[in-house]
């Protein structure tokens, strides 16, 4: 069956189950393999993100989570397979053109512009847009992260890790995305701060209907938050299912939840 055929089938099944109008597959990753030189980082990965849901990808260090995130963004490009966004093949597009298709990313390690003010960072996020949206969007992200409002004139590099993470997400939101990719927003943050950020992500999804693809090592929080999840082990997707089902799965529990997360155990 063709890729499109599979998508239609997936949508219809899901619509039947929910009793709603068929939701649209926004992002479809099909048979993607990515290599660093001759080393395979991703092998034959299939993954779907449907409009309006939070999908999470969990896995240990070095499983290829961030590689998958970056492959979706075209850096590095997939050597095999296709990535479709909103019906359009984006596998071979350069990164900055993918960003123009209303996909935004909050990259791993936050990567805010340290010497620029918070305000300027947000302006960079809105670089692709008409300036008339700016005031309104600024208001919106400041409502989501009130801390940022207090710090608009501060240099981004002088803020705490949690604030920088908020800024990274806010900056991504400034481009008015339909799909938001979050790469390890909990990295190196205190539990309370992580909770705040995850609450904001949940708000974004519930209130604004934002579609979110979340890459996380913090499996417990991510699976609790997400509608569906995928587990990545050594570059392959080994399991998928609803967040609740994965959370209850004994194999996942053993590998990612109980003895602390991060042990690279084959599930």
């Amino acid at each position, binding site marked *: 069956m063709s890729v499109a055929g599979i998508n239609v089938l997936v949508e219809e099944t899901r619509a039947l189950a929910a009793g709603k109008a068929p939701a649209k597959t926004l992002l479809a990753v099909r048979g993607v393999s990515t290599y660093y030189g001759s080393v395979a980082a991703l092998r034959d990965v299939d993954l779907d993100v449907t409009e309006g849901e939070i999908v999470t990808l969990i896995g240990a260090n070095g499983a290829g989570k961030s590689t998958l995130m970056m492959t979706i963004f075209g850096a590095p490009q997939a050597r095999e397979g296709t990535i479709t966004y909103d019906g359009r093949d984006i596998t071979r597009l350069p990164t900055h053109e993918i*960003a123009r298709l209303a996909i935004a990313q909050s990259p791993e390690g936050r990567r805010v512009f*340290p010497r*620029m003010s918070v305000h*300027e960072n947000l302006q960079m996020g809105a*670089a692709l847009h008409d300036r008339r949206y700016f005031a309104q969007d600024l208001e919106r992200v400041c409502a989501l992260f009130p801390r940022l409002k207090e710090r608009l004139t501060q240099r981004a590099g*002088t803020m705490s890790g949690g604030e920088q993470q908020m800024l990274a997400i806010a900056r991504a939101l400034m*481009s008015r995305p339909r799909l938001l990719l979050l790469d390890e927003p909990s990295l190196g943050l205190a539990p309370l701060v992580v909770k705040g950020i995850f609450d904001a992500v949940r708000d974004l999804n519930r209130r604004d209907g934002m579609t979110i693809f979340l890459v996380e090592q913090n499996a417990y929080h991510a699976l609790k938050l997400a509608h569906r999840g995928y587990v990545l082990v050594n570059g392959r997707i080994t399991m998928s299912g609803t967040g609740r089902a994965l959370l209850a799965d004994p194999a996942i529990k053993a590998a990612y939840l109980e003895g602390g997360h991060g042990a690279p155990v084959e599930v």
Partner: protein
Amino acid sequence: MAAATRGADGLTGILKDAAIYALGAFALCVPVVSFRTDAGATGGLELTPRWVLVAGLCAAIFLARLAQRLVLMRRDARRALRPSRSQATEAVSGTPNAGQRVSMLALWLFIGVALTLPVVAALASGSLGEGRYWIDLGILILTYVMLGWGLNIVVGLAGLLDLGYVAFYAVGAYSYALLSTTFGLSFWICLPLAGLFAALWGMLLGFPVLRLRGDYLAIVTLAFGEIIRLVLINWVDVTGGGAGISSIPRATFFGIPFTAGEDGFAARFGLTFDSMHRVVFLYYLILALALITNVVTLRLRRLPIGRAWEALREDEIACRSLGINTTTTKLTAFALGAAFGGFAGSFFAVRQGFISPESFNFLESAIILAIVVLGGMGSQVGVAIAAVAMVGGPEMLRNLGFLKSIFGQGFDPNEYRLLLFGLAMVAMMVWRPRGLISERTPSVALGERRAISGAHVSEGHG
């Protein structure tokens, strides 16, 4: 406001304090330095008064104390800021402190002095002709200010370390020299063309180095600068090789030549002919070009492209994921920086009337880069101050003849210029590693303008 009054009180206080120090120095100097005793011909002691030296020493002590207090004051002002309760990181002051106001003052002082220099020089030395030395020095400094501002776009804003900037200066100079001597084109047509050619070469250099950063980029640009120089030396048919190009047409006042004849500038405007008119015109020309460079840079910083340059300097990957085309962003930075180098180059050619590859060696690139780095990367005022210090400073050494009275007649301060240069560099790296003016004013001010201190960012980013 409290901070403002404190700053004002502080300034008079500092002046008073420095004056007291100078008085103290004077009191010490009177018995020790003011008279030199020599054994006279008759065997008795002869007293030689040395009041100039005493005045010089007192002035030096006054200035040193002033500088020390200003530096300390900035530090105290920074330390006095109490972090707010809601803020764990270092506090940022809303009102500029005295030190920051000094840098604002420096900008206006710089523009004021620059605008009036020919008049002041002429009045101070009696006639325009007498003041020529100062005006020429002004032209030299302003040329480097312009080059520094041009390179600042590439290095300071876009963060691309360019060691071959002098190549674009050379392209601009040779563009004008060749176009005017071969086709007889006037300076005013060649000036934009020279900028255009330099920009083209900037793009040409930009393409192969798009993937490079930091050290690797520096090496390739260094090689590029040398290639241009070697081509200029060896392509004798076109460039005249090492002999250079001479008798380049002089600048005209928008078509009116500066000659003594009927059609000359002086006759047209009813002035008596003076060869200095041309020099003064050149002075204001380079001042205008430099200020245009500055205004364009300041404007661009507030536009999306300027912000994209700064974002590129901070994080290239983040830039790309925000939809910025890093290729075009880098190329525009190279091209624009090069264009200003080209303008400066064609000015250099029209001023000198003679150019040769000698003028475009690596040392020039190094000086321009040093100006940008010493000034504080990205700071326009800092670059101007650094240019004055780097270019004017060594020139001033020639005037330190009074030191001979201390170190003896054989002492030539000029011989020590590179030593002092090195010392100054080391001192800078120790005390102000991020440049003279390390504050970066955000491109947007919300409410009050806030300066963000360079001290807030880790060394690697500074």
